[in-house]
């Protein structure tokens, strides 16, 4: 119920943003709208019934949810660039406030790949190696909290790795590559560890199915994440950087336009890719 409302709000908010940008004479890539919608569909598949009902009972079902909610959905949502959309669509004063918040120290620390990777992998280790996992079955609020953490940490980590939203202080790609590899290793090690050390109350066969799903399913999503990461690196280092990807047949319009007085803030946050 709660997650259904949150998903609806996320869909409505994004749609309102796109409409506002268009109304101002700007342009928003349809590709990103598709990413956002697909990300929300995956998140819905993981949190709404019947998948969620299934996930209460076995670890393999829960792992499907984890792969969708914590890894696949965040990748799509990050590529939809919701922060950039908000900066373009919000009224000037609010957009400035948002830009200021994004540049602040705490946000910088929180969105640093090292913090994000620790929150993401650390949360999973805590969930499966303490009594948190069995406790989740008995408390609705705890399950909701865990879901919120999984999707938030997954989003934060993915944004730190391949985010297309402005982040002027994002570390260099070699640093991010090392952190990404370390995270992939932590995920794989945890999956194998679970195979032999099931969380309390999980039968061995169920734990083994869940662990293999986490390992090989994780590999698949990681492959997509690595491919996006390398593709961005490839695009950024081309011998002749391409211009904006607007088909020649389409009338050339500015990518976005805002009231003049926001100019300074908008420029202070260059798009990075």
């Amino acid at each position, binding site marked *: 119920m709660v997650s259904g409302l949150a998903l609806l709000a996320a869909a409505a908010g994004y749609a309102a943003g796109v409409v506002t940008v268009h109304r101002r004479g700007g342009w928003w890539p349809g590709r990103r709208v598709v990413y956002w919608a697909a990300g929300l569909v995956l998140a819905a598949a993981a949190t709404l019934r019947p998948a969620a009902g299934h996930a209460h009972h076995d670890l393999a079902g829960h792992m499907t949810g984890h792969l969708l909610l914590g890894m696949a959905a965040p990748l799509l949502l990050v590529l939809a660039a919701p922060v950039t959309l908000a900066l373009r669509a919000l009224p000037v004063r609010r957009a400035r406030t948002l830009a200021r918040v994004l540049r602040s120290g705490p946000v910088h620390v929180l969105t640093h790949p090292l913090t994000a990777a620790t929150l993401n992998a650390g949360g999973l280790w805590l969930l499966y190696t303490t009594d948190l996992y069995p406790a989740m079955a008995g408390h609705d609020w705890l399950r909701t909290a865990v879901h919120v953490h999984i999707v938030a940490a997954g989003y934060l980590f993915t944004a730190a790795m391949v985010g297309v939203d402005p982040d002027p202080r994002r570390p260099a790609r070699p640093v991010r590559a090392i952190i990404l590899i370390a995270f992939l290793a932590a995920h794989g*090690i945890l999956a194998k560890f679970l195979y032999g050390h099931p969380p309390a109350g999980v039968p061995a066969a169920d734990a*083994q199915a869940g662990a293999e799903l986490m390992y090989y399913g994780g590999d698949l999503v990681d*492959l997509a994440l690595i491919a996006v990461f390398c593709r961005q690196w490839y695009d950024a280092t081309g011998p002749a950087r391409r211009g904006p990807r607007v088909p020649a047949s389409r009338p050339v319009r500015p990518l976005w336009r805002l009231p003049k007085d926001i100019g300074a803030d908008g420029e202070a946050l260059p798009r990075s890719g």
Partner: protein
Amino acid sequence: MSSAPARNVVSGVLLGVGVAGFVDETVFHQLLHWHHFYDKSTPAAGLVSDGVFHAVSWFATVAALFLLADLRRRAAFRATPWWGGLLVGAGGFQLYDGTLQHKVMRLHQIRYDVDVTPYDWTWNILAAVMIVAGAVLLARSRGRAG
């Protein structure tokens, strides 16, 4: 990594490591089931080293292919150093796995419940052959100045 010949070697080595890791995973784990997904006798060090090497080879595979695409768009691809790098990468990974991981650290073995001696020799000799062949290609490409 700045010069084109060096980048050819780097791309080859990365793909070699990636392919060796991938073959190990698909053929020996998934098709033949010679390795176990998780072995109760596996020490923690084995679990960690497995995880790290799996992550490295997974990333290396994709990175190597994008590096190859980059060389091609710059018209800087050279087959000889690239294949030399690939063979050295794959052979080096396999030799490391067969000597240090299997024998020195005793993390896991190629097979279980059989005499592993012939498997070990086959595994490591194949690795050595790949390294020598790769080294020959690398030397030859250097002789021709890239």
